């Protein structure tokens, strides 16, 4: 089921990305990486992805939020499910993992905290892709 699914990670911390790749790739995902918001957004616009893993705190501030906002405005991009991976739980105001209170940026998104346990990561990624595909099937 994971075979052939294309994911994009946008995160400015290559070390952290390594730790995510080492979990997603063995599970069969085809993962591309972008280490800054600009490259990330260019990739989103030029290729097709089944899911985006997005860091919030990048560059000079919450540049991940800017990406999410731009995606929301684009009818095509807003259909890509997004897993927000962030280290700043207090700024996003949620207290317990699994009980996120966060602004829904796009149609299908969820938020997990850095660092993320492998099982939780794989679970969320596949659930989000599934939810997004179901949504598309209903819509068409």
């Amino acid at each position, binding site marked *: 089921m994971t075979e052939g699914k294309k994911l994009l990670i946008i995160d400015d*911390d290559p*070390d952290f990305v390594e730790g995510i790749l080492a*979990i997603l790739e063995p599970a069969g995902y085809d993962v591309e990486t972008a280490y800054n918001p600009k490259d990330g957004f260019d990739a989103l616009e030029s290729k097709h992805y089944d899911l985006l893993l997005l860091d919030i705190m990048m560059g000079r501030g919450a540049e991940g939020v800017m990406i999410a906002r731009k995606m929301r405005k684009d009818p095509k991009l807003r259909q890509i499910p997004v897993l927000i991976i962030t280290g700043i739980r207090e700024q996003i105001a*949620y207290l*317990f993992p699994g009980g996120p209170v966060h602004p829904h940026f796009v149609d299908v998104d969820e938020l997990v905290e*850095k*660092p*993320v346990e*492998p099982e939780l990561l794989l679970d969320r990624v596949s659930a989000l892709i599934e939810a997004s595909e179901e949504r598309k099937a209903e819509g068409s």
Partner: protein
Amino acid sequence: MVEDKSKILIIDDEEVVLDSCTQILEGGPYQVATAMDGTFGLELVQEFHPDVVFVDLKMPGIQGFEVLDRIHSFDPTIVAIVITGYATVNSAVEAIKKGAYDFLPKPFTPDEFRVITRRGLERRKLVTETTALRREREMLRDQFAAILSHELKSPISAVQQNLFALESQLSDQLDEEQSNRITRMKSSIDDLLKLIHTWLRVVSADADIQKIQEDFQPTSIESVITKAIEGVQTQSTRKDIEIQIKIEETLRPTHGDEITLVEALVNLLSNAIKYSRMGSKIFVTAEDKDDEILISVADRGVGISEEDLPFIFGDFYVGEASPDGERGSGLGLGITKRIVEAHNGSISVDSALGKGSTFVIHLPLVTPNR
């Protein structure tokens, strides 16, 4: 450039004083404005934003003292100097008590006026520099939070993430000892991350707490307690501690912020567990009494000695070692107290060494018409 000139405002009902003062300062690096009475003078204070204001104490209309007061409530960094025609020590002292920086007795020579103007401007410079420094210190504190969160947390998160990955990659090759070693590493890093969260919480606590007051709403105490207990479940299960809850059925809501109230209670519960023995019990009760809600957390743990009690709500207070040698960050109770006080409540404690502690949070009830 006009902008760089120091701005001097003179408020005096004698035109001759205004004219001569303007003349004395002419040609210097000054921009001078004048007003014949207090009312117009105060208008100019707001429009002209002077650095130094000379105020005649004896004027018709608004009195000089009143003008002084209003200048200070508008901008306390403006330097005010009083001009006094009846150079009695009394009125000068009175004016300085009201916040005037200096006084100028009439009649004065051009030199006296120039000197006092210069001194006033030096004072102004000092005051504005102090204000800027204070602002800088506050910004530094906020910056510190950002640095702590990004520069310190990011690498630790990355290490933990890679450890997670390594563990799952090696899952079928690790023997028990190796896998225990990884578990211990993960738990140490997790403690470190939690500690950073707590620090961040303290650094940003005052600002954050002001923010929560803006969105207070009726909050169910029962829901707060339930969520807080969920939050410490892993901890209590690990020590086989039973948490007994007794919530008054008719308990009314408080006016507050659920997330931080849960946090406050989690801190109390987490301490109760930390300082209890294995298999012990913790009692949580909630009731309303008179005009307030009382939430109590009682343990039968190690207790707090009488001489330590006054310090426990301060930042960085850490209690005597818990039964299993755990140590806290010393910040939980301080944060709890701040949260409770932001809710216009208070927190009290009753404790006996060797017998246990009872913490009680007092919160106001939602008052009608609010």
